[in-house]
């Protein structure tokens, strides 16, 4: 187990380096440091000396990858790429280009994002699996046909529609919850209730259809027939046998996204005024704030790798036949 984890850790280093290099190259292919300075200084009355001063102050005055003015290995060290990468691998994300601490922003924004994403994930999983089991149990009946039709309809509708409809009906017409907003602490339930319900609803169609197909595949297998032959009732067969054996494909999708819940949801947070991480990257890209973009892509990559590790661990938990070797 430990060997396996160490090996995966060793694989992660070149992956993260590659992601970092790719982000860096792509960003600076589109935006030069001069462009970034102009974006931050505005369009009125900006002079070239002001742009040069901004670059020096924010560390963008160095060459990108190779510093021809420096001898030996310093030619590689005294560059933008090297300096920024070293700090990031030390998890020092520094300041955004408008001078605000990125670590502080991440800490402040992760909570609100999780307050939506985690309940949505858990509740969504529970609802989707529950509905899928119900449809499998009632397979080939009118309930199944109705359920399949309903899920197809639900999955055909844009998630934006659920948000706008939810806000319009629940918050605007029925006036049961605030349309948007957030407060930290226990009172936040008032604000997160609608986004959670809407997010779960938006995922019900896809999730239920997907899990139904997994369970239908399982239910036709020999071990299910054996279980029934032993006289087990249908609920027992579904919950103790079909669900457990259907967990591996479920885990593949579910556990991998678990760490990424920290990253929040752009659309939901934007419409419901949740001060989370969802819009942090988009705002940063629009403002050409490379420091934030780089930090968020790096964190996203790390979380994705963690998600993959967790998936492997979950496999072995769900299926004892899986071994780390």
């Amino acid at each position, binding site marked *: 187990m430990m060997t396996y984890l160490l090996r995966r850790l060793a694989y992660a280093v070149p992956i993260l380096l590659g992601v970092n290099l790719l982000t860096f190259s792509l960003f600076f292919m589109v935006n030069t440091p001069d462009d970034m300075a102009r974006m931050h200084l505005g369009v009125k*009355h900006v002079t070239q000396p*002001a742009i040069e001063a901004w670059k020096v*102050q924010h560390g963008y005055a160095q060459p990108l990858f190779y510093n021809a003015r420096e001898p030996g290995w310093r030619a590689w060290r005294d560059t933008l790429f090297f300096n920024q990468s070293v700090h990031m691998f030390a998890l020092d994300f520094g300041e955004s280009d408008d001078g605000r601490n990125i670590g502080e922003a991440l800490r402040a924004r992760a909570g609100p994002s999780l307050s939506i994403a985690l309940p949505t994930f858990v509740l969504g999983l529970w609802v989707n699996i529950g509905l899928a089991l119900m449809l499998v149990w*009632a397979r080939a009946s009118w309930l199944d046909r109705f359920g399949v039709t309903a899920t197809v309809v639900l999955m055909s509708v844009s998630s934006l529609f659920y948000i706008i409809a939810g806000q319009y009906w629940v918050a*605007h017409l029925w*006036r049961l919850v*605030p*349309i948007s*907003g957030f*407060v930290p602490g226990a009172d936040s339930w008032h604000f997160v209730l609608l986004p959670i319900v809407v997010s779960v609803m938006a995922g019900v169609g896809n999730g239920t259809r997907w899990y139904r197909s997994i369970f239908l595949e399982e239910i036709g297998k020999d071990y299910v027939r054996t279980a029934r032959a032993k006289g087990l009732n249908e609920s027992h067969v579904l919950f103790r046998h079909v669900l457990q054996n259907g967990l591996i494909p479920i885990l593949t999708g579910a556990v991998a996204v678990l760490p990424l819940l920290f990253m929040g949801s752009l659309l939901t947070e934007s419409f419901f005024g949740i001060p989370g991480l969802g819009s942090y990257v988009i705002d940063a890209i629009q403002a050409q704030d490379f420091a934030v973009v780089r930090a968020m892509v790096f964190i996203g990559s790390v979380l994705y790798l963690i998600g993959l590790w967790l998936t492997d661990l979950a496999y072995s938990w769900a299926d004892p036949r899986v071994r780390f070797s």
Partner: protein
Amino acid sequence: MMLLAGCTQRVWNDPYPTSERVSNILYLSFLERPKHLDPARAYSADAYALTAQILQPPLQYHYLKRPYTLIPQTLTAMPTLTYLDAAGKSLPATANPDQVVESVYELHIRPGIYYQPHPAFARDAGGHPYYLPWRAKDRSQIHQWQDFKHFGTRELTAEDYVYEIKRLASPQVNSPIFGLMSGYIVGLKAYGSMLAHMANKAGPNDYLDLRRYDLPGAQVLDRYTYRIRLHGKYPQFLYWLAMPFFAPVPPEVDAFYHQTGMAERNFSLDWHPVGTGPYQLTLMDPNWRMVLERNPNFHGERYPSEGEPGDAAAGLLRDAGKPLPFVDKVVFSLEKEVIPNWNKFLQGYYDFSAISSDTFAQAITPDAQGKPHPSPVLQAHGITLETPTMPAVGYVGFNMLDSVVGGYSERARALRQAISIAVNYEEFISIFMNGRGIAAQGPIPPGIEGYQAGVSGMNPVVYHQVNGHIERRSLADARHLMVEAGYPGGRSARTGAPLVLYYDNTYTGPEAKAYVDWMAKQLAKLNIQMISRSSDFNRFQDKIRRGNTQLFVAGWDADYPDPENFLFLFYGPNSKVSSGGENDANYRNPQYDALFNQMKYLDNGPEREKLITQMLAILQQDAPWLFGYFPRQYVLSQAWVSPWKPNMIANNTLKYVQIDPGLRARDRAAWNRPVWWPLGVLGGVVLALVASVSFTRRKRERSLAK
């Protein structure tokens, strides 16, 4: 729980704490977080919405008077101005600008003005600054602004104003107006070079105590008096003195924020500005909410007792002489999307609202004359509408350096004039702006000296007079001009090749195609083919800087209400390509430049107006822009907001806003009674589903048993 809730009077969709229900709080929304709040750096409307309430430059605009009038804010009187010649001798105010070598402003601030409470002013029993130096013990205990336990204040002094002027030159600050001001303030450019040298020695972000380095152009004369020296004559400088760039910054606050550990906690002038204004920023979370609260040390400004004719009748002088500000607290909430913002305004949770194109039809009902009014639904709620014209202009520029559309030959001029006629901005305003704008006859918008409404201000190249009204000239006129330009029927008379023009813009999103198609359609009226070159902001600016454009979309927001701030956009030495100035059409006309040099030194009056009329006539003939439109802002306010007057130049107007919290609480409660029956229906559906599953189960079990 829901049943219990249904029995109480609680408004369930209220996004604010119950304790605030009848509080004297103004609720506003914001779309984008301000990039900077440091007075030397902030240069955007979203930043001014906050900083103008906190910081007090020496001058401000009178709230009610029009045309916009400067008055002292922290000064005892308007600054005294002395012109000096080359020998240092005083010149009369009417002196020829060529003789004026230096303008000297003396500003005397009122004693007894105090800063908002701030930890940088806190002192211990021995009189030593409490947080300067910031000890390791404090650093370990203070992580957010609320963790500071000790606050203090001190009196505003002249040195604070001089310190801020010095900061404009600091490479650590990167003020956007340093380049501009270094051309005017004596010694500012050299001061910037010196500070850059010092910063290189000390470290790019280490604290430099600017008090130790004198700036010849900004000097403290005594505790309450300071002097600013400018090269030559620059009457518009007074307007700059009403902008936050010239607000005071206490040196000890700057030193406080430069201490180790401050930046990591976002303790900076950019995050926590310090001022003497009516409000202080008590919560700065631009991803969620920003809160201004009454500054307990505010020096007691009073509501104006005079205004324009009609102001008294409009109820705008009802509060004359009352102390400001009226509202205790202002809460700005982030609303990134239009629909939630609008619906919350309808529910009474925002006190003001702009109108987007998505909600325009729901919000506005025009009368028979086309005058906009709030829709009947909004009128029933007592919501009122103001429609001020903004001191801004949207236009399409011709690159005067381009070989096809540029230049000053009769042919090139005729081509630009023909296009000016063909591009119908009345239609543009109707389609894309819901009528919220005025087709421009020149670059100067209404409310600014030099603007003339009606026939007297008509652009005779594009319009003509019909029965006392102005009407756009016909396409036949435009086609005739195309013949003069050498492009009959949109083809070169010489080669027969079709005329193809590039249209540079930064249009993005779903509406981009509509904008581009509309412009293509306008040019197609003259059989001109158009190729749109949409690019991102950086690429677009790059093309403008290099002069690689033919037609380009642009706009200008006024810094101050003076025609110079619009007419300088055509001044030859300000050409974008040759000098990096704001003249992005690269227009250069010696006659115009000569008139501009006369006009900019004059006070408003008949002589200046005559010069402006001549300048506008030259611009209309040369047509370096398609003078597009002057945008109008439609602002809705709730019934509980007292009568207010839009002031499109002043930003510090929140102190004049007054609300009736009791009426607001009653209206909110009446408008937001929860509707519970849908939950009952939902519960019924769930029960029916459970029952049908149960029924199916029993049926199956029975069939298995058989």
